[in-house]
Structures are given as structure tokens and as C-alpha cells.
């Protein structure tokens, strides 16, 4: 398994995020599509300081014990209240309690992931009476997502922004948007200072070109390094994701991002019930709470199923290209190998997986 070894090598250099739970079942979870190969489990040895400071198992065990003891207390409380509380509200309280004290998604086992996703689905059902589909699908093997943006094609229609907001259940009240389209003047180069990213006039405007920015899913993401609780990390398929339930809301990652890729829920996010996208992923577009950071995930709920992110699908000009960087026959690879590509602020060493090119 030379490939796996290689991948592991890469990740074990990563002091913080080597806890990639190797998928012992196939990564496809609920998804359709065959996946016959069940790879044997490769247990990653604890690395760096973790060899000395307890490992994940200890932590998880300790955590379990703690929750168990708390749960006993909660159980006692809830049984004593059972005269007044109905079954549903008891269940709701139980779910809220377990959710409050669950661990970091990154360190969860397959079963724990399933359990939290089931709880979230059930909780939504109890609160709204509606059912949603939530996935906990892991990264696919042999995949590293990449993105290319054609600045000579984008016309500034902002269909991508619309699609993104709707797909990802972003807060409507604060008009949160992951994507910004910068209207740049011809002949001024990439002058973001003079660009307008909030225009409202007929587009494309004479003498202008358009450049979209969003999270670039850096291969060396500064936001991940700075997070004090490892609530954000880079997945095996290159997606930089956030566990919204683990984030403490310190916003250090926002300060560390050179690309304005992150958004904060300053108040409780609001999405009209009828507009909620119910096809969700734990790391993607599920409903957020107030006080947590969120960001573009390349629509993890779509991309891990094999689809394009919503922005790519919505773009009427074909300016957005998405694909698997590891597949030598993919279109994204063709773009990288045949077009003159560049990335923003390459000198910062963040290694974005988001390239720009021109016709």
C-alpha cells in the first residue's frame, strides 16, 4: 500500500492534525454508488507531543466517563421531572445534553459520528416536525479537491453567490456570503483596493473584469494552525472544514486568514424554514448556531457525493472549474497543466488549492 504510506507520511508531519481516523468502512456512508474495497485499518501512531501527553483514546475515554457521569445526573433530574415533562421534551433535553458534551468531530469514531448526526436530525425533527438528511461521509480515497477560476470568463452576474447562500443555509439576516466577486478595472492589474465587490449595475461593465474569491482551502492553512481547540482542520481530501459544535468562537482563524475566507455568526443565523436546504453534511451546510465561525467547504455535502459545488453548477459562464487534483485525467489537472495559472498572495506560503487563469 505505497499510496497509503505516502499519504500517512504527509499527515504525520502535521503535528496537529494527524488524527485522521482511517476509514475502516468505505467512506461512502449513506451514499449510493458501489464501493467494494474495504481498506484494512492503518492505526496511526501518536505523534509529537501526544506521545507524552495522553493520546486520543485516553482523552476520549476520559471524556466518555465524564459524559456518562453527567448523564447519570441528568437522568436523575429528568426522571424526577417526568411528571410534568412529556416524552418529547425529555428526549429533546437528552439530545441537547448529549450534544453539549460531545467531543470533537475530528476525533470521533465512525459510530460516534453517526450518533451525533442522528441526534441532530432527530433534534430538528422534534423542533420543526420536518425531516432532513444529514451525512457524516468521510473523505474519499484518491481525492484532493481543487478549483480553478477563469477571470476572462466571469461576467459578474453573481449567480454563484445566490446558489451558495441557498445551498449552504447561510444567515439571511446578516446577508452572509462566502463568495465575493470583485469588479476590477482593466489596465489596473489586480488592484483589489480599487475594485468594487458590492456593485449593483448592469454587468459586465465596460472596461472591467471580474474576479471571485472565497475560501481557497489552502494546503498549508494558517487558520488551522491558530485554532486553539482544533475545531477546524484540513481533511484528507484537502477540504478545510469547521466543527461548528466544537468552535469556541475566538475568531483567531479569521484574523489569520489572508483571504477573507471565514465568516462569523454574530447573531443567531436565520433561514426561513421553507428555504432550508435539507440535504446536509455535518461539516457542511447544516444549521449553525450563534457565535461560531463558518466558511466555504466546497459544498462538502455535494462534492463528496461526486457533484460540483453549487457555485460551479450555478455559474452560467463556465468560469468555475472544480475537480480532483489527483486524477491525471481531470479537467482541473488539464487547466493546471495547460493554462497560465496563478494564485493570490502566493508569497505567504499558504498554498491555496484555488487557481486563477485567463483564456
Amino acid at each position, binding site marked *: 500500500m505505497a499510496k497509503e504510506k505516502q499519504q500517512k507520511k504527509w499527515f504525520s508531519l502535521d*503535528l496537529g492534525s494527524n488524527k485522521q481516523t482511517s476509514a475502516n468502512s468505505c467512506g461512502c456512508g449513506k451514499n449510493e454508488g458501489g464501493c467494494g474495497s474495504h481498506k484494512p485499518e492503518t492505526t496511526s501512531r501518536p505523534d509529537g507531543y501526544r506521545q507524552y501527553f495522553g493520546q486520543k483514546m485516553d*482523552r476520549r475515554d*476520559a471524556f466518555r466517563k465524564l459524559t456518562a457521569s453527567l448523564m447519570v445526573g441528568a437522568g436523575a433530574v429528568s426522571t424526577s421531572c417526568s411528571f410534568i415533562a412529556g416524552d418529547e421534551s425529555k428526549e429533546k433535553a437528552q439530545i441537547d445534553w448529549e450534544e453539549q458534551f460531545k467531543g470533537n468531530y475530528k476525533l470521533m469514531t465512525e459510530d460516534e459520528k453517526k450518533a451525533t448526526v442522528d441526534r441532530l436530525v432527530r433534534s430538528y425533527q422534534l423542533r420543526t416536525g420536518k425531516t432532513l438528511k444529514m451525512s457524516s461521509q468521510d473523505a474519499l480515497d484518491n481525492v484532493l479537491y481543487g478549483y480553478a477560476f477563469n477571470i476572462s470568463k466571469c461576467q459578474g452576474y453573481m449567480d454563484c453567490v445566490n446558489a451558495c447562500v441557498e445551498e449552504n443555509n447561510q444567515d439571511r439576516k446578516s446577508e452572509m456570503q462566502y463568495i465575493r466577486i470583485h469588479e476590477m478595472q482593466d489596465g489596473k492589474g489586480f488592484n483589489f483596493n480599487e475594485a468594487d465587490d458590492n456593485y449593483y449595475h448592469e454587468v459586465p461593465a465596460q472596461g472591467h473584469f471580474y474576479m471571485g474569491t472565497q475560501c481557497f482551502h489552502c494546503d498549508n492553512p*494558517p487558520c488551522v494552525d*491558530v485554532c486553539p481547540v482544533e*475545531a477546524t482542520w484540513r481533511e484528507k481530501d484537502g477540504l478545510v472544514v469547521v466543527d461548528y459544535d466544537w468552535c469556541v468562537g475566538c475568531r*483567531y482563524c479569521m484574523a489569520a486568514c489572508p483571504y477573507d475566507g471565514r465568516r462569523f455568526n454574530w447573531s443567531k443565523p436565520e433561514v426561513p424554514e421553507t428555504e432550508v436546504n435539507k440535504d446536509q453534511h455535518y461539516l457542511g451546510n447544516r444549521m449553525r448556531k450563534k*457565535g461560531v465561525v463558518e466558511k466555504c467547504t466546497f459544498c462538502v455535502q455535494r462534492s463528496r457525493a461526486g457533484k460540483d459545488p453549487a457555485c460551479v453548477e450555478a455559474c452560467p459562464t463556465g468560469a468555475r472549474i472544480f475537480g480532483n487534483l489527483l486524477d491525471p485525467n481531470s479537467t482541473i489537472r488539464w487547466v493546471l497543466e495547460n493554462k497560465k495559472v496563478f494564485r493570490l498572495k502566493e508569497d505567504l506560503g499558504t498554498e491555496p488549492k484555488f487557481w486563477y487563469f485567463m483564456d
Partner: protein
Amino acid sequence: MGRFKVFKSLVRDSLDITTHGSKKYHFWMGFLTLVMLVGMYCYFLQLEEGLAITGMTDRVSWGLYIANFTFLVGVAAAAVMLVMPTYVLKDIDFKQAVLIGEGLAVAALIMCLAFVVADMGGPSRLWHMLPVIGVFNFPNSMLTWDVLVLNGYLFLNLSIPFYILFRHYQGKEANPKVYIPGALLSVFWAVAIHLVTAFLYQGLQARPFWNNALLGPRFLASAFAAGPALIILVLALIRKFTPFVIQDTTLKKIAMVVTVAAQINLIMLISELFKEFYAPTHHSESAYYLFFGLDGKTALLPWIWTAIALNVLATVILTFHKLRNNFNILFFACGMLFVGIWIEKGFGLIVPGFIPGPYGKIAEYTPTWVEIGVTLGIWAMGAFIFTLLAKTAIGIETKSLRYKGNAKA
């Protein structure tokens, strides 16, 4: 067993002494309590509504809280300027001041932690940082370093004075062999807390305004100016309102420390200004925004120029022996320096780091009243804690507070 009894007695005596005092004392404590209550109400509003109730936005995602946090780490670190001469260099002139300095450090650190908690989007999830049950991204995240060093420093600054006071309370001398290693450690630790706090910002390649090598040293210089300046003011008040004796030479020596630090701070400021404005690059835009405004956005101008004026004036006054040795002028200069550095290192440092944004966009930041209320509440809490600590310490040091349970002592 015996020690525990003494401790119980100390707590009882301390409660006794801190709840009794002059009318002025009661008025002061009542006032602080009121401000704290207002702060708590504001914090309650913030918990209800979320941080949207503050002036912060995605563009300027840190504001008044983090600004005060940064400044107060400096104040806390400044205790080292008193600890080192007293415990390490054995300069007795500092001896009276050092307990006060350490008390101030404790209060400042508690305020720091309170400001960080106030800034959190999910304070109920803070247990995610605790060892064993949470995940601590150490050593990658500078914030985890900061949590470690701040809490360590808090522990040092609580334990050393506590040991000394505890011995004095029993009428015994403190054993230097016990506290000197701790004091030595705290000297290095103080430098560490402030350097680590500077690294918090300095390590971000995304923010050129912070990402410069001078930030750490400059933090230290300004801290060693503002912190001891505050200590001078506090000592002056203590001298006036309590029987605690503080020699003139003590104040003069601390003033010397303040002067040198303020001068170094000013030199570094000049170096920074030179770099930003002699050959301005794309990275100088934040500095332009701070000092001259950018695109007609000038919210920080009055503040920063006030700060510069205060700093320069105070440094000049302090530089002349004649002026510095006049206590009224000294106190005035220390006040100016304190305010000047609070502005410069508070939101004069934090806010411009975010402006202009990564894509050159400017959204200005103005704190809201809720934010200001929480901030004042935390400052009041700091003052409250410090008053409690100082009153007990002064009681013990002036020998009015003594353990009576043991006849031999």
C-alpha cells in the same frame, strides 16, 4: 492541620478587614460593585443577542475586548520590573512595592482572562480547551501558549506573595530558598507572557501591520512603561489613604524604570514610523489608516494623535530629573503615559490590523455601549480584586493583621 487552621483564620481575618473601612473605602467599593453590575447586565445582553450587539463585524473581528486584553497582559508583565530588583538583585527600596506590583499583576491577569471570555462567541464551550476532556492545539496555536503562560503567571503571582504574606501573617520570616526560585522563574515568565501575546499577532502573515519583528520588543517596552506607571499611581494612592509606608526613593526608582522604558518605546515607535512612511508599500496601508486615514475613513485619527502626544510629552517630562523628581508632575506624567499607551497598544494596535481588509476593503469599527459597559465592568472587577488583595496585604505588612490562634507566634 495547623497550617489549614492558620489559613482559615487568614481568610476570616481577610474577610473582616476587607469589609471594614472608612466611608471613602465603602464608597469606592460600592461604586465598583455598581459598575460591575452594569457590566454584568451588558454581558447578559451580549449573551442573549450574540456578539452582533458589539461593534465588531467580519471585517474588524476583534475590538475593544482584545485591545484591553493585550494592554493588560503588559500591565501584568510589568510586575517583573519590581520583582527582579527586590528578589533577585536584593534592592530593598523595591521591597515595599513588590507585593503591590504582584497584586496588580494578579488583578490584571484576571481581567485578561475575563476579556478573553467576554470576546468568545461560545463561552459555554470553553471547556473544549481544558486538558483531558477537551482538545488543546498545542504547540501549533499561539493562543494555547498564551493560555498556558497567562495561567502559569497567574499561579506564580498568586503563590509567591501568598507564601510571603502567609509567613508574615504568622509573624515568621519568609524563607528566601522557597520563594527566590519562583521569583526568578516569574521574571522570565513575565517576559514570556508578553512576548507570547505579541506572537499571537506577530505570527499572522495575513496581517502585515502586526507581522513585523518589532512587535514583540515594542510590546515589552510599552508594557514596562505603562505597568510601572500604573504601579506608581497606585502606590501614591496607597501612601495617601493607608498607613502603609512607601519611601520616596522607591517611587523614584520605579519612575526611573518607567522613564527608560518610555524612551525605548519612543525609539521603537520612530523606527516603525520610519519603516512605514519612508518607503511605503502595500503593507503600510494600515499605518496610513491609523495615522492619516484612508479613503476618507478617519475614525482612529484623534485617538492615535492624542496617544502620540501623551506619550511624547510624558517621556519628555520624565526624562528631566528635575521634573521627574517633583511628585505631582511625576504622577501627572505617569497618568499621561498610561492613557497614551492604553490607546496606542489597545485599539491603536488591534483595529488597524484589520483595516484595510485582505482585499483592501475598509469597514470602520466603533464600539457600542454594550461593549463599553462590559469593558468598564471588567476594569471595575480588576480594581475590586486589587483592592481586596491590597487591603489584606497591607494589613499583614503593617502588622495589624496577625494570626492570634497561636500564642507562640
